[in-house]
């Protein structure tokens, strides 16, 4: 085990390599580009391939092909590029192909800017592409978690034969933090007897497909997919909490915003305000049950996001109207300041006390 200072993008790339991913197809976009620089050097070292495609549309379809051939494969982009990939995600979900896609979110809509944002929450968690489907969405909040959850993403993708997204932003991408890096070891990748590798290499004939012209047949597929999603909802929600004991107020935040909120909780506690934090790690499946449970014993929650209240809706669904769920957000690539969040908490806390 080595302890070293690592940059977020390097951690994503190294995690992919450690997870046995040998193929990356992508197109440069800020702030994702430094990940491509890392993998363009690193993948050939392990006999892998980094291929720069002509567009994000082509990238995700190369990923589709490589996944269909049974490989562990990854792509990464930022907002505008991820929008272009939505068709591919839908096809992969339909054809039940595993892949890992990283979205380093930036300010939008449109071309927006390259500053950190969390405004792609709806797109990722509510199905940015067409049709009834879900992607598993992981939101790490430190470089160590980037390393750990990117590896986990590959396992989840293979286990459920479904695309998995790792969501972060430019801060997480550029940030350097110490990580514990385990020795590289050979991992055994799961067998994929369904892959289209040529009939000489498996029993029978394999077809990778999401086209079901007859509605009755499509419905059967939809129901089968739903059964899988239900299983994921049951088994995979992940969340972390901080100082919930004695908390009357709970901040809910993910990724970069959750790091800020942790310091808000520290500062609020110093001032005697009983604040705790819940941090969803899987944004889909969302940890509804955990949040509902906590809602039973606190006064209100505050969703802190770098968007206009997208996750707030899921928190509201979770608490089932038992308590108010407020929102504090900065937009357009602006990062909230801990002091301002604390001010909002104090304002709400005092207002609540007056009532």
């Amino acid at each position: 085990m080595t302890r070293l200072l690592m940059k977020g993008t390097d951690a994503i790339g190294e995690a992919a390599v450690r997870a046995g991913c040998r193929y990356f197809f992508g197109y440069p976009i800020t702030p994702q580009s430094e990940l491509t620089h890392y993998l363009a050097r690193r993948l050939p070292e392990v006999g892998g391939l980094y291929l720069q495609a002509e567009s994000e549309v082509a990238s995700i379809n190369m990923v589709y092909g490589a996944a269909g051939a049974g490989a562990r494969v990854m792509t990464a982009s930022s907002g505008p590029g991820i929008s272009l990939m939505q068709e591919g995600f839908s096809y992969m979900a339909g054809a039940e192909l595993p892949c890992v896609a990283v979205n380093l979110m930036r300010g939008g809509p449109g071309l927006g800017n390259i500053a950190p944002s969390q405004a792609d929450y709806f797109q990722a968690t509510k199905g940015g592409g067409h049709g009834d489907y879900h992607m598993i969405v992981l939101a790490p909040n430190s470089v160590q978690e980037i390393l750990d959850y990117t590896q986990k993403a590959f396992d989840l993708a293979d286990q459920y034969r479904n695309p998995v997204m790792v969501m972060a932003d430019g801060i997480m991408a550029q940030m350097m933090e110490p990580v514990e890096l385990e020795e590289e070891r050979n991992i055994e990748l799961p067998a994929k007897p369904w892959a289209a590798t040529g009939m000489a290499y498996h029993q029978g004939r394999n077809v990778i497909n999401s086209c079901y012209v007859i509605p009755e047949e499509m419905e059967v597929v939809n129901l089968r997919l739903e059964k899988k999603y239900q299983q994921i909802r049951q088994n995979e929600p992940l969340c972390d909490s901080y100082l919930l004991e004695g908390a009357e107020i709970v901040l809910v935040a993910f990724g970069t915003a959750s790091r800020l909120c942790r310091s808000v909780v520290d500062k609020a506690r110093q001032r005697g305000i009983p604040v705790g934090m819940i941090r969803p790690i899987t944004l889909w499946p969302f940890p509804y049950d955990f949040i509902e449970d906590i809602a039973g014993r606190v006064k209100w929650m505050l969703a802190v996001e770098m968007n206009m209240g997208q996750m707030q809706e899921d928190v509201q669904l979770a608490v089932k109207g038992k308590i108010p769920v407020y929102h504090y957000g900065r937009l357009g690539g602006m990062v909230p300041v801990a002091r301002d969040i604390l001010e909002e908490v104090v304002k709400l806390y005092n207002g609540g006390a007056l009532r």
Partner: protein
Amino acid sequence: MKKVFTRPKTLKDVAYHYCPGCTHGIAHRLIAEVIDELGIQNTTIGMTSVGCSVFTMEYFDMDMVQASHGRAPAVATGIKRVLPDRIIFTYQGDGDLAAIGTGEFVHAAARGENITVIFINNAVYGMTGGQMAPTTLMGQVTKTTPFGRSKEVNGFPVKVCEMLTPLEGAAYLARVSVHSPKSIIQAKKVIKKSFEVQMEGLGFSLVEVLSTCPTNWGLSPLESVKWLEDNMIPYYPLGEFKKPGVLA
């Protein structure tokens, strides 16, 4: 009794959904015969596209991967890069390849991607019901060019083989037709060569197959064959545009 004609091994025993007189079936058969002759049925993976060819996966007896509209060369790239020793081909119509998929086939060719593209050009959109294709001829009447294709509104048809010729990554480019027995025999030779180019690792190969669409042309099968000969071949000349190492 001696068997003189039979279904190729690589074709499944199912009836085509294609309209009467459509030449997709001939193109399918030629590909299947070539695959049989080269003995590569079990090591070949085919890409289907969107349009009339979407059901190709029901017809070829081999591993198949369905690609989204226009993206088959990108999907093929992904597979070929993972499995470089397998034979990978795409089967795409003129809307799929020459309109929505313009980025993907051009860049697959530019990269010299070692895959084979079979491009069916029938100058019209089939599946969606007879609209203009990028290869619709000047003056040709379609559902969306009811007064004929005009340069003012629609511009000019795309000549795919000619357009790819300057690309260094394109190893083999040819245009064939399947409107007559003679042209069909020639088409098979060319298709076979395109697979051989891939098997030898020489780079990107594309065969453009001029094809009929009696339903959407509003002609009988026989009239269609004549229309292809009289109208398409003069605009889309047949022949090999590029052979490995030799500029046509």
